[in-house]
């Protein structure tokens, strides 16, 4: 098999080379960016400890994300049956969870209330919207 051609992705955090296999499809985009259906997962030493979720359609939104386990060990949020079907989750398979990070001059916060979940087997993702989670949408990340 010939290796697939790499893509050069220009983000506001720098320019990175990614593999087309790292493209995730969000069938309905993300709330606020409904017309951007394809995002690429960018991991690089320069981005550590974040993973950049960079849109490659429409307005090309770009997010910094974190593994929620690194914020709250044992993080768990239920996935509704409808969402499992949308992602093609067939059994207890490993899913990739990402929490959207918000940074300003004073604080860094992470949205644990509406995490992004990706089924790596299909590279399909969605943002979970829970009505009754106890996790915060603005969980603080800074040291005290």
């Amino acid at each position, binding site marked *: 098999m010939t290796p697939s051609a790499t893509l050069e992705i220009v983000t*506001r*955090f720098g320019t990175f080379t990614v593999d087309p296999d790292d493209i995730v499809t969000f*069938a*309905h985009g*993300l*709330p*606020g*960016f409904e017309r951007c259906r394809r995002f690429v997962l960018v991991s690089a030493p*320069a*981005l*550590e*400890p*974040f993973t950049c979720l960079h849109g490659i359609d429409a307005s090309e*939104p*770009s*997010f*910094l994300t*974190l*593994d929620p*386990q*690194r*914020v709250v*060990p044992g993080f768990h949020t239920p996935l509704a049956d*409808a969402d499992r*079907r*949308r992602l093609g989750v067939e059994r207890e398979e*490993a*899913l*990739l969870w990402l929490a*959207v*990070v*918000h*940074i*300003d001059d004073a604080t*860094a916060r992470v*949205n644990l*209330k*509406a995490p992004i979940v990706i089924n*790596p087997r299909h590279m399909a993702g*969605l*943002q979970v*919207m*829970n*009505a009754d989670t106890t996790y915060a*949408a*603005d969980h603080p*990340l*800074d*040291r*005290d």
Partner: protein
Amino acid sequence: MLVFTRRRDEAIVIGDGIEVRVLRTGKDAVRIGVTAPHDVPVHRREIYDAVRAANQSAAAVPVASLAEVAARLRLHPQLEPVE
């Protein structure tokens, strides 16, 4: 906006395969059942709007130095990276 009067157990049909049914009525709240195809996401308006606002705000953040930000975070070690 189309406006309907519906009683308990009555429904409206939207397009192909979406049904909105009144299950129970109360003084200040109405319990509604939505039947929709699997590929049609259904959300509570205020939750969707809150996530949209949070996403737009997160995507708009200008970042000067990631290393500087990362240094001040309180994070736990990564246990099992997902392949």
